[in-house]
């Protein structure tokens, strides 16, 4: 195939313990480390491997958000993407709006495969890939742990509640990645230098002629309820007694 598109979301880093602001207006993001959503990094790694084994010619990495998303796109270029597109907006973008934006880019670029993370670790929605596939009227293969190509088709192994499900989809298609699809490569310093010379185009979201207004209104952020402090027992006898006291054994 010619082109693969991967979208990356700028999110609070996986290792940051997220805290709710005292006034309930959001979560603390000032001075917090931001990274590529881990599932999107897996998506990009998979696209690069497909290109490296000769099954695709070009990998385009895309992000939707503020100008700061350029950092994540540069990381994507350093990992090995050929070029980057930032769809710039200062507003929050819901999954349906993101899907509409991505569809516009697919149509412009003539993309044959889109690989996305199965969910973003900030809003935990797990929607964009499925919505994009619906709008595009193409197959979706979500939660992928293995992807193989032959004769214009992809055979995808999916991590589902029952175990592993294998489906076959015609291309073009949308694939979303699960954790065990691959282990993303580390970026080396020379690659970061090289990435600075790769093309990164910026498009204003308003120039794409898509409806992106928010449908849902978040009225409050609250910290989760804390579990009550438990007890420590000294040995197995103490554990058995504690379980019996609670009527659990």
């Amino acid at each position, binding site marked *: 195939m010619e082109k693969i598109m991967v979208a990356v979301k700028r999110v609070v880093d996986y290792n940051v313990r*997220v805290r*709710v602001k005292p006034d309930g207006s959001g*979560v603390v993001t000032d001075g917090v480390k931001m990274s590529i959503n881990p599932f999107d990094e897996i998506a990009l790694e998979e696209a690069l491997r497909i290109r490296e084994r000769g099954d695709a010619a070009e990998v385009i990495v895309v992000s939707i958000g503020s100008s700061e998303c350029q950092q994540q796109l540069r990381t994507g270029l350093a990992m090995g993407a050929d070029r980057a597109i930032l769809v710039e907006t200062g507003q929050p973008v819901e999954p*349906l709006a993101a*899907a509409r934006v991505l569809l516009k880019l697919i149509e412009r670029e003539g993309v044959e495969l889109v690989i996305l993370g199965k969910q973003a*670790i*900030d*809003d*935990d*929605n797990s*929607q*964009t*890939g*499925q*919505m994009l*596939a*619906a*709008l595009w*009227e*193409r*197959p*979706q*293969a*979500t939660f992928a*742990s293995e992807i193989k190509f032959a004769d214009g088709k992809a055979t995808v192994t*999916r991590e*589902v*509640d*029952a*175990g*592993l*499900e*294998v*489906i*076959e*989809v015609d291309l073009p*298609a949308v694939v979303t990645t*699960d*954790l*065990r699809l691959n282990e993303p490569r580390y970026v080396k310093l020379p690659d970061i230098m090289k990435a600075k010379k790769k093309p990164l185009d910026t498009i204003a979201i308003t120039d794409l002629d898509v409806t992106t207004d928010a*449908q*849902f*209104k*978040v*009225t*409050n952020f*609250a*910290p*989760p309820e804390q*579990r009550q402090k*438990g*007890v*420590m*027992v000294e040995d*197995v*006898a103490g*554990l058995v007694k*504690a*379980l019996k006291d609670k009527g*659990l054994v």
Partner: protein
Amino acid sequence: MSRILIVAEHDGNSLNAATAKTVSCAADFGVEGIDVVVFAADGAAIAEQAARLTGVTRVIRVDHSANAQPLAAVLAPQVAALAADYSHVLGPSTTFGKDLMPRVAALLGVGQLSDIMDVQSAYTFRRPIYAGNAIITVEAPEDRTLVATVRVASYQAAAEEGAAEIESRDLDVALPEHTRFKEVRGGSSDRPDLQTAPRVVSGGRALGSSENFELIFGFADSIGAAVGASRAAVDAGYVPNELQVGQTGKIIAPELYIAVGISGAIQHLTGIKDAGTIVAINKDGEAPIFEVADIGLVGDLFQVIPELQSALN
């Protein structure tokens, strides 16, 4: 007109417990009716099970050879065709529902709400974000169909005291042929189901190997518990993916959860915080799992588990 349509999850033979929990959530909306739709090759037995769920007004049975397997691309246009008669369309927040419901929403041109954990009104909900580190209150627009998934760990299964009518329907919808089911592997087990078992024993990286993980299986079997695992144990290949508990695995709410050799990353804790009692066994007394455990024991799991197993039997 205010009615909810719930898309039933099943394995071709029987209804998944996630559907009964979704019905419980729907009962909190205060709407006029709750209908359940069963898509299957032959949904007779499944539809009868759904009709017994308390709160269900009607079961719609859509039998079609293309519905033999739950392919989102095939089911979504059928759900979308039925949606015109409903104010809300719900599915469980399982891999089935997460795959299907966004596709339904996009076909209807509406957004989708994920993981409802609390219903405040028919259009106001609470749901977790950031692996459960924050709970948001969300208002949905009332002028369009609301498509949503239900965080099933937040709800008890509906009782089985109902007798809803069952109606067979033929839908005149073009079904795509670009997606084909090949097979499902694994998952066949005589052990209790991880998502519904009242007792769960989970193992972590500290087990060290799939051979050592047999210790967890043996102990779980001895107390009739389901087996779970941390992401680290699954990534290391000790157990298959369907045992993973946490943000990106299964969210569970057993009465008793025993975490063995699991340090307790926030991504794991979000999967168990609705458990009745959490027991942690870990040799590192500083492990974060002890912050959420109701009962904690610092010790070597390879000594503690055999001892515990014989003490309980």
